[in-house]
């Protein structure tokens, strides 16, 4: 992987609060233009990791580099951050508030105003520009918070549980916005404990549990490497083949289907050939990938 492809790199990063280790020896690489899933149960250390990336806290040990350079306040301006801890100034008008956040990220007045107009329109909130924030529904406020994160056109966008509490329509709007940013070449880190969302969006993942990384890589690799070689089989006959312990490790029978676990080193195609050769009628033969959720649960329960 060429260096220029890496937006963010953490190498051996650790952070403790008093006796408690929040993150220990974490290394990961986030590639440019991809959506990276930072996954883990509550309290695993996701938020601490993000806080170190955005510069709210500093690591006790290890190195964080952004765009190939050590983290500096100037570089931090190229990060957009939607914290899990959501908040807005309640008595401030939406547009005014966003322009203020833009200014804090180094935008001048005109640029902040332009970006605010653009994004409010994109989020279908233009009519609310001059309304006070506490007049907005919770979902709308969440969209405003998202706008606050992307207003200054960051190259790296960090979203901490962006979908929590959103209705399906808003979820879809937000999802599309994220995908659009990715298409425009932005790098996105998605921190979540909702595996379904992560599975749909992320190209790469890093699973942390109890302050440590337990799994990482592209989603495809992870699943392949983690595959228990399961096959969903609906067939008549061929029972003799399934009994071959060199090929099949276990068979779990459901009503009319069986879940076949291949023996270590066995090839699925070989099994299919043998079944057909044995005269079995194969109606369904599908290599099942474990869902991210399954992997998550298994790995997390293994560490605790």
């Amino acid at each position, binding site marked *: 992987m060429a260096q220029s492809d890496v937006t963010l790199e953490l190498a051996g990063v650790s952070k403790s609060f*008093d006796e408690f280790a929040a993150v220990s020896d974490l290394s990961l690489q986030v590639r440019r233009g991809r959506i990276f899933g930072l996954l883990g149960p509550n309290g695993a250390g996701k938020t601490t990791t993000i*806080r170190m990336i*955005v*510069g*709210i806290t500093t690591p006790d040990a290890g190195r964080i580099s952004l765009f190939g350079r050590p983290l500096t*306040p100037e570089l*931090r*301006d190229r*990060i957009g*951050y*939607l*914290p899990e*801890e*959501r*908040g*807005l*100034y*309640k*008595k*401030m008008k939406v547009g005014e508030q966003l322009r*203020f*956040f833009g*200014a*804090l*990220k*180094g935008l001048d007045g005109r640029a902040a105003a332009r970006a605010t107009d653009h994004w409010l329109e994109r989020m279908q909130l233009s009519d609310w520009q001059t309304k006070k924030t506490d007049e907005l529904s919770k979902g709308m406020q969440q969209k405003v*918070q998202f706008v*606050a*994160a992307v207003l200054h056109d960051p190259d790296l966008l960090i979203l901490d549980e962006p979908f929590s509490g959103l209705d399906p329509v808003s979820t879809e709007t937000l999802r599309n916005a994220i995908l659009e940013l990715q298409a425009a070449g932005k790098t996105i880190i998605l921190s979540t404990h909702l595996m379904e969302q992560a599975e749909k969006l992320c190209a790469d993942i890093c699973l942390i549990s109890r302050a440590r990384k337990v799994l990482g890589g592209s989603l495809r690799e992870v699943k392949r490497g983690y595959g228990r070689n399961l096959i969903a089989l609906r067939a008549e006959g061929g029972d003799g083949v399934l009994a071959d312990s060199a090929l099949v490790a276990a068979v779990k029978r459901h009503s009319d289907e069986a879940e076949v676990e291949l023996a270590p080193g066995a090839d699925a195609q070989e099994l299919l050939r043998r079944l057909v050769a044995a005269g079995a009628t194969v109606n369904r033969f599908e290599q099942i990938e474990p869902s991210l959720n399954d992997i998550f649960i298994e790995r997390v329960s293994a560490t605790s």
Partner: protein
Amino acid sequence: MSRLLAIIKREYVQRVRARMFVVATVLGPLIMLAFAVVPALIFSFNAGGPLRVAVLDETGRLYARVRDALQNGADEAAERGAAQPAGGAGARPAGGGAADFVVSPVVLPSGRAAEEAKAELDELVRRGTFDAYLVLPRDVLATGRAEMYVRNLGDEFTVRQVQERLGAALRDERLAAEGIDPARVRAAGGRVTLSARKIGAGGAAAGAGRGSFGLAFGIGFFIYLTILLYGQVILGAVVEEKATRLSELLFSAVKPFTLMMGKLLGVSLVALTQFAIWAGAFLLVTLYGAGALAAGRISLPPVAPSVVVYACLFFLMGYFLYATIYLLLGAMVQTAQEGGQLALPVVFMLVMSLYLAVPVIRSPTSPFAVWVSLVPFSAPITMVARIVAEPPPAWQIALSLAVGYGTVALLVWLAARVYRVGMLMYGKRASLPEVVRWARRG
């Protein structure tokens, strides 16, 4: 820098535009005026009209004097230049248009016993024909003892007033008996006007410094007022991001120190604006509205320019000293109310240093005065008191300023450290050991 300005601007604009600010700015002086004037008005307000008094004069020659003294007592007191009893002070028009007392004689038919008359008077008072009656015994001039019977004994003011005026009447009567004209005695008792002049460093005797105490106390009171009004606002502003759960987003964009200072300066500018509006309004009123009235009464003592500079320096020092304490408290707590409770000792300190100004101004060169004017928490008030009373050596002023502003810097530094950690903690107040740990960790 532009981010600090953005934070200051937001803080300022949001607060000045708020309805509360407008209301407080308009109503503030009115409320203060009301606090000053209304009690006096209420005290002087005699709801029941003049007190109807019957006088039973057993001496047979005092009645006229007593009646005059009671009915015109105010005039006489003014003429005498003596202090007024509390009950008589207030908004009564000069010249005593409305009498405090209506006095009637009790004619004692010869042969009737005084006791009998008293029983009758008791009944009259009870029925409401009179409010009170006065008994002047035969030997009143010798003993100085008289009796008053009142339906309402709770009205202590009136009893004291009667006592005072009766005393004057008896004195005049005694003087007359000695053949001395009471008016001449009154003239001889005229007040002395002592005009004190200050000997300054240049040796020039001038009228300056008359208002010294007022100035020192005024600055002290001004700091007190500002902190009282704005300490809680600073607390609220600092806690605001905690309450709105915004600190995380803001801290990812600016340093906690920048945010904190922006808030402190923003609120301070709001305070400045409010005071400027009040000062402007006051000037306008004095110049146009009540110009004539004020010109006669209020004359500010002439103040040296250096004193003005020092006063400003010490005011700012005092303001920021106490403001940063509120800042620190805000960083520690979860809600402004909680911070307000923690701030009580701070307010106490402020009041104490206001009182300290009194012994300091009486002996400005005593070791006590030197020490308290170097302690940062009392210096803003006591050092100014010393400067106007008797200028201390320059090095002491410089040291006091250095220590004071140094303390401010130290408190800001401490607050920033606590703020950085404290703002990301939700749900509980930081304990003192925690604060110390956060400050050390950095």
